[in-house]
């Protein structure tokens, strides 16, 4: 019996540009991805949601500030409240922060320069729906490409919500506490600046991003089975 391909929505905002890469990569790790336009009044029936990278609304005002008012975001908030796995990559991370689904905010890189390179990341949590295929303390190599990735957490942000950290000396943007990826208090919403969808094939440099996406697909598949039973 072949494993079920769970449906995972990839949201498309005006200015998203990694939506197709995310869909391709999700498909490569066993999902049935579905592109969902931001203006949809409802989130279709899916078992996982990905907010891809890009420059939604031209990054006007603040990155993600406008996209969070997209009609489909209400359905995303309901899906997250119901425990569904939601992953925000780069601009998707910024949108989740602005929407209040993740704490904190992303600011222009401290260097004021755009960064585009592979970075080593340390797995700080291996028990989330997005990192279950990783080992605690493992180093992943995944590329970043952003101008606004300096993560600024709220005061008293707990260590337990840090899922990924830039390896010592490798912080590309000035992020507080070298934070590269965080989860919400319930652990079912994650945001990260690096792009796992650009690291799913060793031929192109690294397959480590596949671990993150495959973890998400596992969680989505689990959810699809429990929904069906």
């Amino acid at each position, binding site marked *: 019996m072949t494993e079920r391909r769970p449906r995972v929505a990839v949201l498309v905002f005006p200015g998203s540009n990694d939506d197709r890469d995310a869909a391709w990569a999700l498909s490569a790790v066993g999902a049935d991805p579905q592109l969902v336009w931001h203006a949809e009044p409802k989130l279709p029936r899916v078992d996982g949601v990905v907010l891809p990278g890009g420059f939604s609304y031209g990054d006007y*005002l*603040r990155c993600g*500030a406008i996209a969070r*008012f997209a009609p489909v975001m209400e359905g995303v908030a309901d899906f997250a409240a119901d425990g569904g796995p939601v992953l925000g990559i780069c601009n998707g991370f910024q949108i989740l922060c*602005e929407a209040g689904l993740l704490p*904190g*905010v992303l*600011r*222009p890189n*401290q*260097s*004021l320069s755009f960064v585009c390179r592979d970075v080593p990341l340390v797995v700080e949590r291996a028990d989330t729906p997005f990192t279950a295929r990783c080992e605690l303390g493992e180093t992943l190599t995944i590329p970043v490409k952003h101008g606004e990735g300096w993560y*600024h957490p*709220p005061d008293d942000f707990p260590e337990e919500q840090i899922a990924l950290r830039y390896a010592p000396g490798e912080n590309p943007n*000035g992020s507080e506490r070298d934070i590269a990826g965080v989860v919400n208090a319930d652990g079912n919403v994650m945001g990260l600046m690096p792009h796992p969808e650009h690291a799913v094939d060793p031929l192109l440099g690294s397959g480590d991003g596949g671990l993150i996406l495959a973890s998400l697909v596992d969680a989505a598949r689990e959810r699809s089975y429990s929904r069906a039973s």
Partner: protein
Amino acid sequence: MRATVLVRPKGGILDPQGEAVERSLRQLGFEVGEARVGRVIDLEVDASSADEARSQLERMCENLLANPLIESYEIELEEHSA
């Protein structure tokens, strides 16, 4: 009613943009210190009184125009144009 909203990086929040501007001004020979870079939003508000306009503007700032985690805001109203 015309209004102007000034959004600034909060005190204590590092502002690399401001620092870059400060450095450039110094290179030009100006003796400046502590430059900070914010945003200005001019807009027309449909309100029957200054109080109503102000409370609308405060909600705009809290919900969209500023991010309270890192930014502070200031509202200026052109009262006479009501």
